[in-house]
């Protein structure tokens, strides 16, 4: 009998086929979930083995840590996403970074009145080293560690961002936007720690109005200090760019 492609019969047949396929699809997904569950157990074992050999390496070796992070990122895994994750539980990476994040918050808070919530990455690292102490437990904190911890803090909504200024990084810990002009200003100020209006006009080719707007914003936000005792003209100093520790 010739197969008909049209008519009620055909519609019913295709509906039946669709339901069958859907059930099959249901099965397939459930099967795969089952498979994943088994694979997860095996993976857990592997991770345990790895941890027993290398857990202390991760703690002690900043470069190994960084390598670990990069490799996870390359396959689309975020080992710091949850304290409940395998990585955190078995390798202890979580506690390391989450505690570092707490310390970063505290350091930034304690210096905010001085630098308006902007600090160089190096200064942050130095201050953290001091507050973590020189005990055996205090491990080497690399700049990469800090950047990753700060990256995780972004979602908490307190304005933690990393700003790239030239070749180095600044950590911002207050909400508030810094636009292109402000970043350029910071870049210019990096060398000497301060800028003047005429310096900006000459070197960055801004008109006076624009230079004033940018510096005014910095002063208002508490990121820059005004120095009217300078010989020629007013200087704007940026405590956030001063590296090294002062009391």
């Amino acid at each position, binding site marked *: 009998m010739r197969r008909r492609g049209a008519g009620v019969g055909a519609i019913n047949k295709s509906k039946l086929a669709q339901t069958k396929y*859907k059930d099959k*699809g249901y099965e*397939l*997904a*459930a099967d*795969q*979930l089952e*498979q*994943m*569950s088994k*694979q*997860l157990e095996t*993976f857990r074992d*592997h991770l345990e083995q*790895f941890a027993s*050999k*290398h857990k202390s*390496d991760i703690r002690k*070796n900043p*470069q*190994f840590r960084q*390598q*670990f992070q990069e*490799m*996870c990122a*390359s*396959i*689309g*895994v*975020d080992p*710091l*996403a*949850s*304290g*409940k*994750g*395998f990585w955190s539980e078995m390798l202890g990476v979580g*506690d390391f970074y*989450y*505690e570092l*994040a*707490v310390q970063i*918050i505290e350091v930034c808070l304690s210096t905010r009145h001085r630098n308006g919530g902007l600090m160089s990455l190096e200064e942050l690292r130095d201050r953290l080293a001091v507050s973590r102490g020189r005990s055996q437990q205090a491990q*080497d904190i*690399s*700049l990469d560690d800090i950047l990753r911890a700060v990256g*995780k*803090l972004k*979602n*908490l*909504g*307190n*304005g*933690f961002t990393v700003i790239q200024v030239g*070749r180095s990084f600044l950590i911002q810990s*207050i*909400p508030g936007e810094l636009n292109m002009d402000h970043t350029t200003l910071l870049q210019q100020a990096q060398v000497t720690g301060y800028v003047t209006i005429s310096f900006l006009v000459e070197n960055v080719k801004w008109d006076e109005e624009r230079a004033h707007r940018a510096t005014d914003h910095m*002063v*208002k936000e*508490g990121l820059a200090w005004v120095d009217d005792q300078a010989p020629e003209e007013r200087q704007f100093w940026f405590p956030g760019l001063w590296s090294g520790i002062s009391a």
Partner: protein
Amino acid sequence: MDRFYWSDSPLKSDESLVFQQTGVRLYDGDKKTKFDRGLLILTTHRLLWRDPKDQTCTVALDLPLVVFLEEKPSGFAKSKPPGPVTSSVYNFVLLSFREAGETQFFRSFQEALTQKRWLQSSIPVQVAAQSSIQNRQIRTGITGIERKMQAKNKQMEQNISEAFEDLSKLIDKAKEMVDLSRTISNKIRDKQGAITEDETIKFKSYLLSLGIPDPVTRETHGSGAMYHMELAKELSRVLEKPLQECGGMMSLTDVYCWVNRARGMELLSPDDLLNACKMLEALGLPVRLKIFDSGVVVLHLLSHSEEEIILDTTKLLEEKKSLTADELSQLVAVSVVLARERLFATERVGGACRDDSTQGLRFYPNWFLTRPV
């Protein structure tokens, strides 16, 4: 930086020049050394750095010692190399290219490492090894100590290489899991594979364990992972009292610090905290998450009333004639960020007026509304 050694300039017999670059600074780990603005020379066997002002000052590193090489945005790092420092905390060195040229150098360096030309000329090396065996092994004194350190470093080297290998294998296995989870996610999204509620919850917990972001199931299946729900309940319980003590509201960063300091171990990730807080409303708990226009995120008690705060702030403004966020924060004992939000909230209903200048942001009672003309 203790694997470098002083060297005389001429290249060895089978060593040849690969690439050179001026304006390079050496860093011991993250610390600057005095080797700045020099000529960095890459040969088939070694990496040399020469001081342009003093041609006899050259430091060298044997390429076989370089375990790992990578490029960083500002210069690039190698592990194990380092130079004329007798001991170093770091096991890596940074090369900072002041006059650019890093990409090509990096490429040449990688090539030189893969080619391993130093292995081809093994005869002179063997001869050297034999003669050193014939020398007495010095175990005491400075040399002895140095030898011990060298041995220890070598051991660490081996450990680290092994660790890197193990890590690669582990990550490969993890990748399989990631791919599988993606297939499942896709099936769910394309509705080609339906799974039950229970199975969805299981799947979510798998994703959480592996640290795989979970956009699909979150969209289509509302509720978050079990873990976050439990966490939300715990947070609400634990935070009620502290919230009452500090005026009913705490910024999320403060909550993060507070909770983790209290825990001591098994800390929460920022994401965990955020995800749990997102579920507070759905679970009908007395603590709620609030996101202000400025982007500030807080947790507050449900019983905490916005109107009361505004009335309170307006009264304070009348009393003090004007307030900045700093001043208010000290008066009311809340953080500066929250004090600022109070002033903004009061301003929004017309209870305050702002004065925005380089002296800072100051608020005044709103006489436009309250004082008769």
